[in-house]
């Protein structure tokens, strides 16, 4: 029986090649998208899901609320642990301190590695929270005492090449040239995807030998750094509610006077281990890893769902439209003894065969798509993930659902045919089915239309973001950073001077940060006038007296600071307004109190410019020099403008700069950033969305138009005789073409009416994320609507023009 069904299914697929192709293309696109996106979701959702007792493991994080907003810090004050360590609600508490050493040396081989990644200082209890498998060494308390370290397998191999693991135990590593650590254990890599990327665990007491000694001794309640983190494992009976209340009370008890005064509050929150991977408020330990956000995954899933639905709709439409062609077979089968149930299963089986063919094609495509969409695909995701049992079960379920979605309704329609009327050839074609087809077609085109409008508006906004004047010079401006290991200011100064000899360099400035960057440096200033106190958080830019020239910043009043180290500031227009100065002139010569309460004179007011992406309003900003010299050097980079030389371009300039750099900093790679590229990088997320939308638009148009073409082929074939008669009566090709396309164009028109408000709402919401944005103009809708109609007409004309220009004699003679 099954074989018989399979045979007839295959013959039907082969007989109606165009319809089958349309179905397969639609389903393949939908399934491929689902496979790729499903893999991404599965990949991201299964981080750190293998730890024993994972439901009881949390990270304590700090949230600070103030009148200006909420700030999230993945770290927690060092003081907290002592306050909760005897609490029975916690089974284990493990503090971590992220402090990347400058270098690590194996004294036996004298090999030094700079900036080893993923090195942490950890408490012994960390290993009680997370189960690591010890390959060698002491697994019970390897990092209890100072000057001990546990290494990962990979690190052990890297530092001690060709030494057996058991031989490595007891050997010494030297961090930052003066901290010795004895290797007391080697652990296997964790057995699954994890965000706990640590490779070297230096014992906690060793932290007392570093520059953070004082922090560790003081344990101040008002000092929080994301470097200091705390993982906890709750006892099985602990109640989250109680713990949260205790934490809230601790935070309240240790609030300092200043925070109270400015309405700032600290909250300690428990972040579940399962949230670690997704919560965008707190960074990952491997900050270089591309971050997947839940909202992006949600959008991706939505796109996959829509594409899949579009494919299913094609299937339903084409199969119900073709139903009459299968009617005879159904009638015969019924007279031969087939029950309706058997027929339903037969048609569902046929659907499954098509779905299966599409699925096989999708497998092949998935491999390729993972490469094309590498910016969406997490780095560690390999195609082989598709063979994991959960994914395979998921795919089988998906195929079953798709089969059911596309096959069930046509199967019901087909199997309902009455044998007697079918075989007597007096089958009445239901009006209801045509209505359903029309509704589904409208749905398809509405989706395509929403995508078109979305793409155009997002594209326009991105265009605006990239072309909007930032308010300072962004072209031909580069910033070169000193090596991260360098602390020698004289070298940076030397580099700043030497760079002036490069002919392409026009002007240069020693800086900490360029006007716009991915980092923000915030401090607070206060202005006291009579009894009114204005307290503001202010963005800081640090640069020497060339800063204003290099970045072409407009001074509205006053002057720049007299020299690089003098305690004077230049404020921007927003800061001027927020601190309550009437006009730029009024601010000159006035004072703001810094963090320590010491007054600093305002010498100039500069025009506003953007400090970050246009998501953000321009904040109050001050330009500061290098005040703390010689104890502390703020400057870390040199910004310069390059002469725009059309003939030689920028590349010779850059290579000349590199030559100077290598003279001063041999053996290090130069970090050079173009200002305009930095600004572009602010919008990576928007570009991703734009790319996603473009693909979704293209594919949804493709699927919908193929479906439309299928329906047109079907109706045109039925109307061949009518077309012949009309032509004989004198209708033109154009008139006949319009006649055939008209009913479908009406559907596309209805789809536009449905789509326009949805698209308006969606893009309006999206644009609210930007402080600076384009208006949603009506012409975009008009253009999108016209484009959709034109594309649909084009797709249909593939068939209708052919039908309309056929010689009527042929169609009429075939009687």
């Amino acid at each position: 029986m099954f074989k018989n069904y399979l045979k007839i299914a295959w013959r039907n697929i082969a007989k109606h090649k165009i319809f089958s192709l349309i179905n397969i293309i639609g389903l393949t696109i939908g399934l491929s998208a689902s496979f790729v996106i499903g893999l991404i979701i599965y990949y991201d959702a299964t981080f750190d899901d293998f730890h024993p007792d994972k439901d009881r493991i949390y990270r304590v994080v700090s949230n600070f609320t103030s009148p200006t907003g909420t700030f999230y810090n993945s770290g927690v004050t060092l003081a907290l642990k002592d306050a909760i360590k005897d609490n029975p609600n916690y089974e284990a508490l493990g503090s971590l301190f992220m402090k990347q050493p400058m270098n690590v040396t194996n004294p036996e081989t004298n090999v030094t590695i700079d900036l080893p990644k993923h090195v942490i200082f950890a408490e012994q209890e960390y290993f009680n929270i997370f189960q690591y498998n010890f390959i060698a060494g002491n697994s019970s308390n390897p990092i209890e005492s100072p000057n001990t370290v546990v290494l990962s397998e990979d690190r052990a191999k890297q530092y001690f090449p060709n030494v057996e693991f058991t031989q490595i135990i007891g050997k010494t590593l030297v961090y930052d040239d003066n901290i010795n650590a004895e290797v007391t254990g080697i652990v296997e890599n964790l057995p699954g995807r994890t965000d706990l990327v640590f490779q070297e665990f230096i014992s906690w007491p060793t932290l007392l030998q570093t520059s953070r000694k004082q922090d560790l001794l003081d344990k101040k309640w008002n000092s929080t750094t994301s470097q200091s983190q705390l993982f906890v494992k709750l006892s099985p009976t602990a109640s989250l509610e109680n713990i949260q209340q205790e934490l809230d009370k601790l935070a309240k008890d240790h609030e300092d006077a200043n925070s109270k005064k400015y309405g700032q509050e600290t909250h300690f929150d428990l972040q579940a281990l399962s949230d670690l991977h997704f919560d965008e408020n707190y960074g990952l330990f491997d900050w270089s890893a591309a971050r997947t956000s839940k909202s992006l995954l949600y959008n991706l899933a939505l796109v996959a769902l829509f594409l899949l639905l579009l494919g299913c709709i094609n299937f339903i439409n084409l199969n119900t439209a073709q139903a009459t062609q299968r009617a005879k077979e159904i009638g015969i089968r019924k007279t031969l003894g087939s029950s309706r149930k058997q027929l339903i299963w037969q048609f569902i089986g046929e659907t499954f065969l098509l779905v299966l063919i599409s699925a096989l094609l999708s497998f092949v495509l998935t491999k390729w798509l993972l490469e094309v969409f590498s910016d969406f695909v997490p780095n560690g995701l390999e195609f082989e993930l598709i063979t994991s049992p959960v994914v395979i079960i998921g795919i089988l379920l998906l195929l079953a659902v798709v089969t059911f979605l596309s096959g069930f309704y046509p199967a019901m329609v087909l199997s309902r045919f009455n044998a007697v009327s079918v075989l007597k050839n007096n089958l009445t074609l239901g009006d209801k089915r045509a209505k359903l087809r029309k509704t589904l077609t409208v749905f398809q085109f509405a989706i395509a239309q929403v995508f078109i409008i979305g793409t155009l508006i997002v594209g326009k906004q991105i265009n605006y973001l990239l072309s909007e004047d930032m308010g300072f010079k962004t072209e031909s401006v580069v910033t070169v950073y000193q090596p991260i290991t360098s602390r020698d200011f004289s070298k940076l100064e030397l580099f700043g001077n030497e760079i002036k000899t490069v002919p392409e360099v026009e002007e240069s400035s020693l800086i900490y940060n360029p006007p716009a960057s991915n980092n923000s440096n915030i401090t607070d200033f206060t202005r006291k006038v009579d009894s009114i106190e204005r307290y503001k958080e202010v963005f800081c830019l640090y640069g020497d007296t060339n800063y204003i020239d290099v970045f072409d910043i407009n001074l509205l009043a006053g002057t720049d600071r007299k020299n690089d180290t003098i305690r004077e500031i230049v404020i921007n227009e927003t800061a001027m307004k927020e601190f309550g100065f009437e006009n730029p002139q009024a601010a000159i010569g006035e004072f703001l109190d810094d963090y320590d309460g010491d007054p600093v004179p305002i010498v100039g007011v500069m025009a506003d410019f953007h400090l970050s992406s246009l998501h953000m309003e321009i904040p109050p900003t001050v330009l500061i020099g290098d005040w703390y010299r010689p104890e502390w050097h703020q400057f870390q980079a040199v910004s310069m403008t390059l002469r725009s030389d059309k003939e030689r371009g920028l590349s010779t300039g850059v290579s000349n700069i590199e030559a100077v750099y290598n003279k001063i900093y041999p053996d290090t790679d130069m970090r050079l950033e173009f200002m305009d590229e930095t600004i572009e990088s602010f919008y990576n997320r928007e570009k991703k969305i734009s790319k996603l939308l473009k693909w979704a638009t293209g594919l949804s148009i493709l699927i919908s138009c193929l479906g439309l073409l299928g329906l047109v082929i079907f109706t045109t074939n039925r109307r061949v005789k009518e077309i012949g008669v009309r032509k004989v009566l004198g209708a033109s090709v154009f008139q006949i073409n319009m006649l055939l396309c008209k009913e479908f164009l009406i559907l596309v028109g209805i789809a536009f009416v449905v789509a326009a408000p949805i698209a308006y709402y969606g893009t309006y919401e999206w644009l609210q994320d930007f402080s600076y944005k384009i208006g949603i103009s009506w012409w975009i809708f008009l253009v999108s609507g016209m484009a959709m109609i034109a594309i649909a007409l084009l797709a249909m004309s593939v068939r209708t023009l052919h039908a309309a220009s056929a010689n009527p004699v042929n169609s009429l003679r075939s009687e």
Partner: protein
Amino acid sequence: MEVLLKLSEASKTVNSGSNQLAILDGIDLEVKEGEFISLMGPSGSGKSTLLNCIGMLDAFTNGGYTFLGEAVHLMKEKTRSKLYKEYIGFVFQAYHLIDELTVKENIETPLLYKNIKTSERKALVADMLDRFNIVGKKDLFPQQLSGGQQQLVGIARALISKPKLILADEPTGNLNSKQSEEIMELFSELNKEGVTIIQATHSEKNASYGSRIINLLDGKILSN
């Protein structure tokens, strides 16, 4: 001879607009096993409807219908379907072979719906092909056959499940006279082997093959 089926006061009405239209009107008929009955009458007299109703593809709206002593009009769909799968075969004027299946597969299909095992199915189909001399055509599709050959396949298909009753609706209507004769010869041969046959026909000649002729007009039996 045992009674195969019995109709008493069987009627069929359909709604045509607001009017009720009687297609079959108070049919009383008894068919014994081994009979060969020819239904005659002009177009629209109700021959096909009567055949369809007897074949349980359609149902009478009134009256009684017993088949092998069981009351069909009281049966559930499932039992009825089981009954006709077991005992009834159809032959159509337009052959009604499944275009996508080969000769062999067409003949095999009724067996599939009776859940017969593969080996037995193969044997039965081979016998049938042999008997009708169409072994050489078993892998051809219906369109590749002449009308007579297609009808032969249609009959082979009707016979494969060893029915007690064959219902033939103008089985030679699309065939030329030579082909018609062959088909009718085949029917009388089958009848001699014990298969009950009811055929609807316009042709006096074909009707003469039968053991009994029933004339229908406007849904009523004129003569029996």
